[in-house]
């Protein structure tokens, strides 16, 4: 079972790819898989009929009690046969239906994926997995209905289908959760074994039934189904006739053994079913498009199924399931016939159809047989089901539940008459009377699938005994009612047969009176109108709310967010009493001095107008914070902070060359007092919150164990570094990804559309003077021999330091971040000494290669232990005694750190190359901004490509 689901799922993925080779015949792959699987499932029939249950189970999320648990009982078997058997024939049909290659390749993957998820839905015993299948079918339905996404009405139909069924699906999920809270299990079988009797469980059942009704297009959700006919005809045959819309019926049938005795169950289902049945039938009578006629017919038939199953007795369960099978078979066949008619005449309009029986006798035969099954005319399977349904309703009426029984009986009988009428409208209107449109093409192969299905429907009519046996385990599961009578074509001259005959007669009369109508249907379903009005109101509400709240001003948005931060958590903090006066004033005198300097520098930085001055003050803050880190006992932090501060200072100055000297904003404005007040409020709140957080700590810090773990699992002595590369490696992985993205972003903002190294071509050094560096400036005005010489000497030393920091990082302060930053500074020095050319001499390729290579190293070093049977992120130590170096220990997380090191170097290279050499290039090409003297503005670059 699981194998079938997986094969179909895999086929769904590969089929689209294969379609470029196989063309439309790619459909034969899922067809073969489905039919083979149908044969296998068919062979399980006897065992299932004997009440055996096939089970396959894979644990998925044991902690949440969720498992992929497939159980094949009688009900599941029936649905699986529908999905695979009818589905397999539809796949065959598709191979000859689709002519355009693009449509075929788009459809095949979606349709196969649908088959897999539908199968998962019906086989799953775990309600969460069932829900997964359920929502997957919704999504596939949405994609298939919107296949022709260029048409607005198709997109809208797809959206309606999606929204309606998803609302139902989410309601159902709520019900499942509620049920789990009552029963303690997600297993359907366990729930049915011990049905919960509480009020909450009743609510859960009601919520799940709402989901079922929405999926099966029962009033008040019925309007999405006719719209879904925008999908190609084979899709409608599969999803919106045979399989997907049966999911709700399936759920009702599956739940009724447990919940049928709820007071609203029978009344609710029977009355909603009857309303749907009659509404669908009446609307079907008015359609001109035969496909939409059948769609309304499907709504009507789904209503019939809910009515019959809603009666909730042994007999009604048997009748309902027989009707379900019959409907899947005949409705799929009818849709496929519509596809044949559409293909050969080019129209589905009843006004342009007629008399096709003589031109297409085989298709007409299949249509007539199937329509007979739909109308409940012997000896078709549909007749068997409808007889049983009428009989079940009557037994109910006699067996105590008088009102419901009679209501159901009358409803089914009237529905049957109307069904006869619209069946006649379809058959007579299409195949009899005067020939209107001459069929252009003949499609012999296309009719095979509908003919086969029509024959199955006919044979089914004579297999009442077999069907009764197959369904028995599910029928017996319902607690109410006497034993179901065996299905048979001839029961004698029973009241059910009499009412059937009356229905035929009435149906024929209705057809005579109204069947000839050829007026275009007008007026809209009030429920559908309500839905559209609701959607429009929602949209208007969204516009109003957005228009009122989104002012589009960044400062306003930030102010709102920060005000909320201060107001709600702030007040909560003050009221909670978490804040006490238990504080230590300071740790050391140096800390106090540094903190004071940092604070003063920050305050002055806010008021200064000079751009460079402000950022110099920020540097004071940055280095001060580094000192505070050091005083607190974080040498790694201090190292990295000091290095980043240096790097930033370099790239900042590189950019400031081209920017005006002063900030734009005049500091003296009224709003600044408001901003200052908000800033003080937020700062105060943050400081108090951090105090309160530590004061109210009750648990032991998680990092207490790090001391031991660092050495035992991480094989390193520098706990902070081990935390980065081992204990919290995922965190670091995400972080270096951010660095990578930011570096790429910087490069693309400067070099807009060209690769970075490509934009800066290497030119052969044509300098006449002897230089210390190969890529040194050619112009003597730019060159600084002292700097060149220093660079020549310093670069190797700095790179050695960088590698040293990387190597010792696991046991002493250092690591990939610090090492990479030192290398970045070394590269910046190369740039300062010799410009972009010298940087190219240092690294003659794109920074992207370093970034990408580093990322690959990081990811591989996290996942490689899996290959040797370890866990993701596990680290190992390899100890060896080497000559000269003595006992050495290599920890595998070093590779992670090397990846980090590469990424940081790559990012630094991107920063220096973009903001340094890139801006140089802009200046040469006159596209850099030109700062104005004593102004806060620049002239934009001339002719900048946007």
């Amino acid at each position, binding site marked *: 079972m699981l194998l079938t689901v997986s094969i179909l799922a895999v086929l769904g993925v590969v089929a689209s790819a294969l379609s470029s080779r196989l063309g439309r015949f790619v459909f034969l792959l899922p067809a073969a898989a489905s039919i083979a699987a149908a044969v296998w499932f068919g062979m399980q029939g006897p065992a299932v009929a004997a009440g055996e249950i096939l089970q396959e189970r894979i644990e998925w999320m044991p902690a949440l009690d969720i498992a992929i648990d497939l159980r094949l009982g009688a009900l599941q078997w029936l649905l699986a046969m529908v999905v695979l058997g009818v589905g397999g024939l539809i796949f065959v049909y598709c191979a000859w239906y689709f002519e*355009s290659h693009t*449509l075929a390749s788009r459809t095949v993957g979606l349709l196969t994926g649908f088959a897999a998820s539908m199968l998962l839905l019906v086989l799953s015993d775990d309600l969460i997995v069932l829900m997964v299948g359920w929502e997957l079918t919704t999504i596939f339905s949405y994609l298939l209905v919107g296949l022709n996404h260029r048409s607005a*009405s198709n997109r809208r*139909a797809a959206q309606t289908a999606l929204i309606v069924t998803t609302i139902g699906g989410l309601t159902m999920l709520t019900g499942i959760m509620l049920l789990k809270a009552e029963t303690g299990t997600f297993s359907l079988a366990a729930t049915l074994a011990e049905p919960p009797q509480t009020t909450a469980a009743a609510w859960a059942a009601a919520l799940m039934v709402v989901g079922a009704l929405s999926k099966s297009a029962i009033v008040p959700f019925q309007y999405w189904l006719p719209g879904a006919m925008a*999908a190609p005809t084979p899709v409608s045959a599969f999803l919106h006739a045979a399989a997907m819309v049966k999911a709700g019926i399936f759920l009702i049938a599956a739940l009724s053994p447990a919940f049928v005795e709820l007071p609203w169950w029978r009344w609710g289902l029977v009355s909603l079913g009857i309303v749907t049945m009659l509404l669908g039938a009446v*609307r079907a009578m008015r359609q001109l498009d035969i496909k*939409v006629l059948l*769609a309304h017919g499907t709504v009507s038939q789904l209503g019939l199924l809910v009515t019959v199953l809603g009666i909730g007795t042994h007999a009604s369960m048997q009748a309902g399931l027989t009707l379900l099978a019959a409907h899947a078979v005949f409705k799929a066949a009818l849709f496929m016939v519509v596809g044949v008619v559409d293909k050969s005449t080019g129209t589905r309009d009843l006004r342009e159809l007629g008399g096709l029986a003589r031109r297409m006798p085989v298709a007409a035969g299949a249509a007539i047989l199937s329509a007979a099954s739909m109308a409940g005319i012997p000896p078709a399977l549909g007749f068997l089901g409808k007889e049983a349904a009428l009989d079940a309703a009557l037994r109910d009426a006699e067996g105590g539940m008088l009102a419901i029984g009679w209501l159901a009986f009358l409803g089914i009988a009237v529905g049957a008459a109307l069904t006869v009428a619209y069946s006649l409208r379809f058959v007579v209107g299409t195949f009899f009377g005067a020939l209107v449109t001459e069929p252009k093409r003949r499609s012999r192969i296309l009719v095979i699938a509908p003919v086969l299905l029509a024959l199955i429907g006919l044979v089914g009519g004579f297999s009442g005994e077999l069907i009764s046996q197959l369904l028995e385990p599910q029928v017996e599961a319902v607690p109410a009612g006497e034993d179901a009578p065996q299905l048979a074509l001839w029961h004698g001259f029973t009241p059910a047969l009499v009412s059937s005959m009356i229905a035929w007669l009435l149906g024929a009369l209705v057809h005579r009176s109204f069947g000839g109508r050829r007026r*275009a*249907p007008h007026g809209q379903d009030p429920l559908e109108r309500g839905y559209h009005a609701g959607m*429009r109101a929602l949209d*208007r509400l969204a516009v109003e709310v957005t*228009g009122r709240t989104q002012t*589009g*001003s*960044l*400062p306003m948005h*930030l102010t709102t967010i920060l005000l909320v931060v201060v107001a709600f958590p702030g007040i909560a903090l003050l009221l909670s009493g978490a804040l006490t006066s238990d504080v230590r*004033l300071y740790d050391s005198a140096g800390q*106090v001095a540094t*903190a004071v300097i*940092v604070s003063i520098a*920050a305050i002055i*930085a*806010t008021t200064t107008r000079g751009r460079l001055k402000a950022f110099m003050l*920020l540097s004071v*803050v940055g280095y001060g914070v580094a000192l505070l880190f050091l005083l607190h*006992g*974080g*040498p790694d932090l201090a190292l990295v902070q000091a290095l*980043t501060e240096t790097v930033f200072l370099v790239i900042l100055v590189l950019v400031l060359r081209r*920017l005006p000297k002063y900030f*734009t*904003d005049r500091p003296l404005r009224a709003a600044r007092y408001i901003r200052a007040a908000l800033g003080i409020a937020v*700062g*105060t709140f*943050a400081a108090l919150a*951090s105090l309160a957080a*530590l*004061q109210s700590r009750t648990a032991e*810090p998680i*990092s207490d164990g*790090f*001391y031991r773990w660092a050495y035992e699992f991480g094989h390193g*002595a520098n*706990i902070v570094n081990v*935390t*980065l590369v081992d204990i919290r490696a995922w*965190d670091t992985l995400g*972080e270096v990804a951010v660095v990578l993205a*930011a570096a790429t*972003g910087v490069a693309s903002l*400067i070099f807009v559309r060209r690769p970075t190294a490509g934009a800066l071509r290497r030119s052969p050094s044509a300098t006449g003077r002897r230089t210390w560096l190969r890529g040194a400036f050619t112009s003597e005005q730019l060159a600084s021999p002292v700097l060149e010489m220093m660079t020549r000497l310093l670069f190797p030393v700095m790179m050695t330091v960088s590698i040293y920091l990387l190597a010792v990082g696991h*046991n002493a302060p250092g690591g990939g971040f610090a090492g990479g930053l030192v290398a970045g500074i070394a590269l910046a020095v190369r740039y300062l000494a010799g410009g972009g050319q010298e940087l190219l001499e240092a690294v003659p390729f794109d920074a992207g290669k370093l970034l990408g290579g580093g990322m690959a190293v990081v990811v591989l070093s996290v996942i490689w232990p899996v290959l040797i049977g370890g866990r993701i992120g596990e680290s190992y130590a390899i100890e060896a005694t080497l000559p000269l170096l003595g006992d050495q220990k290599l920890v595998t997380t070093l590779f992670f750190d090397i990846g980090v090191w590469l990424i*940081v170097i790559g990012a630094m290279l991107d920063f220096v190359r973009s*903001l340094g050499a890139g801006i140089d290039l802009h200046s040469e090409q006159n596209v850099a901004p030109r700062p104005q003297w004593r102004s806060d*503005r620049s002239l*934009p*670059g001339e002719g*900048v490509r946007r």
Partner: protein
Amino acid sequence: MTPTLILAIAGGVLIAAGVYLLLERSLMRILAGVMLAGNGVNLLFLVSAGPAGDAALVGADPETIADPLPQAMVLTAIVITLATSAFLLAMSYRSFQLEGHDEVADDVEDAIVRRRAEADLSSEAYVDISDSDSESGGRDDSESGGRFERETGSRAEDEEAR
């Protein structure tokens, strides 16, 4: 545990100064605000690390070392702040290159939505076909090549609103 007051005060001052700058419109000052606030938050991390101690190296007394976990978090935060700052810096430069200044203008799309709200219109993305006859259902005429229908209606409405 007992927090260190002076660190919390310094962190609070840095955050206050950072927020003050963040509320400006000039990208460069926003950048300065991000850097200040980032440093402030990092200091508050130190507060939550408890008292100052020795470097967190195995071999030191486990009772006197500083808490290593906040340090690891701050270390990642420092590097991310550097990356973000470089990005903001490049954005500011690009803005000068294109416009001659780096002020963040009000969002144009928001203004459009506001005008639509004032004119009592639905959103641009909303296509109203509920008036048309939807009973006929769609046709899968993508087989016949398909037409490209573009909804010009809501655009026209929007023009009207302006």
